[in-house]
């Protein structure tokens, strides 16, 4: 009995450095943000418990639209990047001429900061930009791609940054698959496409998931790129958070917005897990 208590105490001590770190730097701020949304422990004016911030968030058209827009700016570039990265990673995994050079080149956007990428897109695709000037003489009139309603510029800049990142992670996962397994699938009658969907994708799913989630979460809180390249309306919630914090000192509303963004992230992640569960269990179990 005494030994049991002692052992539990020893385990608690051993977990403390990692667990304590998470509790202090992750759990506590999250809890404070959550409580802040209800007017408690917030910076600025202490109001005591109130639902006013959530009422303001969901009652204001601009904020509601901002919420959907943030979600849109997280999902669409992530899906676009995944659609490019997955086949790219498969192509890069094969041996081909110029492989080493291409392997270096596709990673270039990784070292370019997001804000620089945004300015590159602006220079290229804004009205009077390089692309428009090159295409105008041949009679092609580019649609509005910067500060446009569908945030195409944001999607281009975010995807441009995300593709090499996702390709790198997914490529690592694909590369870890024993090549004999792929050869076995081929000799058993699977063509390249069937091998891709039935063998490579399920086996690389841990990497695909990691790439998807990291890109998605980055997009959910993105501030600089949507602010530069996004439309005037709607603004993503991240921009509203900045304005409310530093221009209106309304930290309670900022906390409520942060909490809702986090909850939506969690909801999308759960939906992702549910959607890929079929893939992980299509043959009755988890991949790997």
């Amino acid at each position, binding site marked *: 009995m005494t030994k049991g208590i002692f052992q539990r105490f020893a385990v608690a001590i051993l977990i403390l450095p990692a667990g304590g770190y998470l509790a202090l730097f992750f759990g506590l701020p999250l809890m404070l943000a959550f409580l802040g949304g209800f007017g408690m422990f917030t910076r600025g004016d202490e109001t005591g418990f109130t639902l006013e911030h959530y009422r303001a968030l969901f009652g204001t058209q601009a904020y509601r639209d901002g919420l959907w827009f943030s979600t849109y700016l997280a999902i669409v570039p992530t899906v676009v990047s995944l659609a490019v990265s997955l086949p790219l990673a498969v192509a890069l995994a094969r041996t081909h001429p110029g492989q080493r050079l291409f392997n270096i080149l596709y990673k270039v956007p990784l070292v370019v900061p997001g804000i620089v990428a945004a300015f590159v897109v602006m220079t290229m695709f804004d009205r009077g930009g390089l692309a428009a000037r090159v295409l105008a003489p041949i009679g092609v009139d580019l649609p509005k791609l910067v500060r446009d309603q569908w945030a195409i510029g944001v999607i281009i800049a975010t995807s441009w940054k995300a593709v090499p990142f996702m390709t790198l992670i997914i490529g690592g996962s694909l590369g870890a698959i*024993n090549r*004999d*397994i792929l*050869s*076995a*699938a*081929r*000799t*058993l*009658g*699977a*063509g390249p496409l*069937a091998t891709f969907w*039935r*063998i490579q994708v*399920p*086996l690389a799913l841990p990497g695909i998931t990691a790439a998807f989630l990291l890109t998605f979460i980055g997009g959910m809180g993105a501030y600089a790129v949507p602010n530069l390249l996004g439309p005037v309306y709607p603004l993503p919630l991240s921009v509203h958070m900045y304005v409310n914090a530093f221009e209106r000192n309304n930290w309670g509303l900022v906390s409520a917005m942060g909490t809702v963004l986090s909850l939506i992230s969690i909801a999308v992640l759960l939906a992702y897990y549910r959607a890929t569960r079929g893939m*992980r269990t*299509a*043959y*009755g*179990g*988890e*991949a*790997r």
Partner: protein
Amino acid sequence: MSVLHIDGIAKTFGDTTALHEISLRVTDGEFVTLLGPSGCGKTTLMRIIAGITQPDRGAIRIDGRDIQTLPPERRNIGLVFQSYALFPHMTVAANVGFGLKMRGIPSADADRRVTDALDLVDLGPLAGRYPRALSGGQQQRVALARAVVIEPDILLFDEPLSNLDAKLRDQLRDDLKVLQRRLGITAIYVTHDQAEAMALADRILVMKDGRIVEEGAPVALYRHPRTRFSAEFLGQTNVLPVYLAAGQVMLPWEQKIAVIGSTTGGHVSLRPEDVAMEVDPDGLGEVQSVTFLGASVECRVAVHGVEVRVRATGSAVGIPAVGTRVSLSARVTPHPLADVIVHDSEAITG
């Protein structure tokens, strides 16, 4: 049940020539083994037959049908890998059924064939398990079931037993032979293990540096090798210089022999178990070392500066002391080796 024709298949990787214009014919239901050291090109040849690797030139035909331009999925060739290559995210049954699913076999029919294939390798009760929950031997049997269930024209084995421990390897080797005979599938088996090759094959092709150096039935190849390479690769042997004296071919211990075949070669191959040894104070040989191996006793004997290995089996065999004078004699007529240069008789006798 098919005939495989390989005609002038060649392959280079960069500066390295993996295969020099290999040609061979495997008849219906035959079990052929490609035997050779690592890097001899045997696995490359197998991968070319399966369509995984593209040759630089040459043709492959199954029953007269050219398959060289077909991708692997349309060749109907089963391949069993050294690494098993099971799909880790699929159950045993799904692994075995994968090829049938790809062929669009209706699921009821496919299920029945999967069950039959698993029964064939005694793994029926494990159908619902995942590969990670199986032992190496069980995994390889699943791989075997997966390869035969599609009823391939040709079944290829790429060192399938190399990752298993010795006892399991012998067991699975016997199972494999019984299964191949029962199904009558034309099979090609790649290995570097001579015992495996001899136990399984109808015909062994010995490969070296991208070439087939010799081929034949296991017994013929073991007892009458033509080349030093295959003589030495198929178990231990003594490569002995012979010399001519008064028109007779003589072994180092002055035994006259009637050499089978050509006498242009200056060396013969004589297996240690084919050398008889007797204690003889006037004998030409002197025992250099003795190793007791349980079932046999192996001695190294020096005769005129030539070291001869002698192996005697059975409990009645005496164990000589090092330094004992002995006389040797060949129990069989040794076979001359074609790839060893003609020896100058002076060098031996002088």
